[in-house]
């Protein structure tokens, strides 16, 4: 259900940026560990865009696999090395999985596989709008 809020936040942000320009495509990045349902996200986007200035916009979603770095021991690791930890969190919470709602909570639920510290930073842990394709005076322009 949270996918609807994410879609709404994307639409509002793009509308605020685009003003009167016609938006053709929006590309967003989503961290893989948020486990958002992409079908629901796209359905929500397509449903809500009807009432907005983005009625012709297509949504493209790129899944980002973050890299983590432990600030305690310096170890750099991928999501595969903490997949069992993430699975444990999903089993505890089910649909209301905290990292689904707030990916920035990741360090509180992930420990460095080498030293066990929570002092980890993730690259690409946020939901981001990466590109917007707009039509300006008949031309198509991409903004990153």
């Amino acid at each position, binding site marked *: 259900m*949270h996918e609807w809020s994410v879609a*709404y936040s994307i639409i*509002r942000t793009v509308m605020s940026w685009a003003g009167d320009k016609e938006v053709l495509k929006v590309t967003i990045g989503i961290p893989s560990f948020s486990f958002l349902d992409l079908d629901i996200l796209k359905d929500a986007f397509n449903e809500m865009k009807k009432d907005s200035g983005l009625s012709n916009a297509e949504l493209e979603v790129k899944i980002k696999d973050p890299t983590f770095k432990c600030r305690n021991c310096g170890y750099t690791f991928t999501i595969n090395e903490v997949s069992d930890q993430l699975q444990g969190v999903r089993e505890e*919470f089910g649909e209301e999985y905290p990292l689904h709602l707030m990916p920035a909570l990741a360090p*509180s639920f992930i420990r460095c596989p080498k030293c066990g510290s929570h002092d980890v930073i993730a690259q690409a842990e946020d939901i*981001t*709008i990466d590109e917007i394709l707009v039509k300006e005076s008949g031309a198509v322009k991409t903004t990153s």
Partner: protein
Amino acid sequence: MEPLRQLAKEKLEGKRVIAVMSAKGGVGKSVISSLLAFTLSQRENTSIVDLDIHTMAMSKLFGLEGRLHEVTKNGIEPFSFGNLGVFSLSGVVRDNYVLLPGINQGKVMEGLIAYANIKSSKNVIFDLPPGMGDEILVLERISKYFPIVVTTPSKISTKVVEYLIKYLVNEKRVKPSLIVNMAYFDCNGEIVRPFGEMNGVRSLANEYNVNFFEFPIDPNVEDYVGKIIEYKGSVKVKTDEVVTSLFYSNP
């Protein structure tokens, strides 16, 4: 481009936004926040958002431990108490502790605000963690807020709180209201001040030209942790007066 910030900003537009803050911890800020929010909700729809994401005191005060927020198409739904909606990170992480690097703290706060369903609320109160950190910067990015600064009469608290007042008055050009919590104890009509006289507070208020309100000590508040909305004692009575004075009296 970060969508959360835009959404948080839009959600707060047109609402009365109040930040309950203190540079010092342990001054009773969360109790004051919860009573302010409940008192405002007795007049208008109000939300309180617990930005103290590490201690999550709101869940303890309102008896919400172990409960999770419902999530709908409209976002994170509040825990409702009449016209009051309560939002706390504890409703996302349940009874897990929250331990985060600095930069993530701000992002989590922004997410909590952005996704909270506060649509029907006229007032939004933020209970901030002690200190002067990301929480103040997060709020400044998304809203103009009315600051209510909480201190006790103690010298150390007053001196520490001065940093915050100085920042708000000199840099932000806003006039905070100061609540002096645990200022006195009414002992059968005799006023006793166990945490010190008000000299430091008076000189602080004079120097920065801010109004202050003295709140009493009521040991019975402790009995209402978990059911704070049932509390009707002297601190609630004082809160009623302050809410009327600050928000509902003609200038």
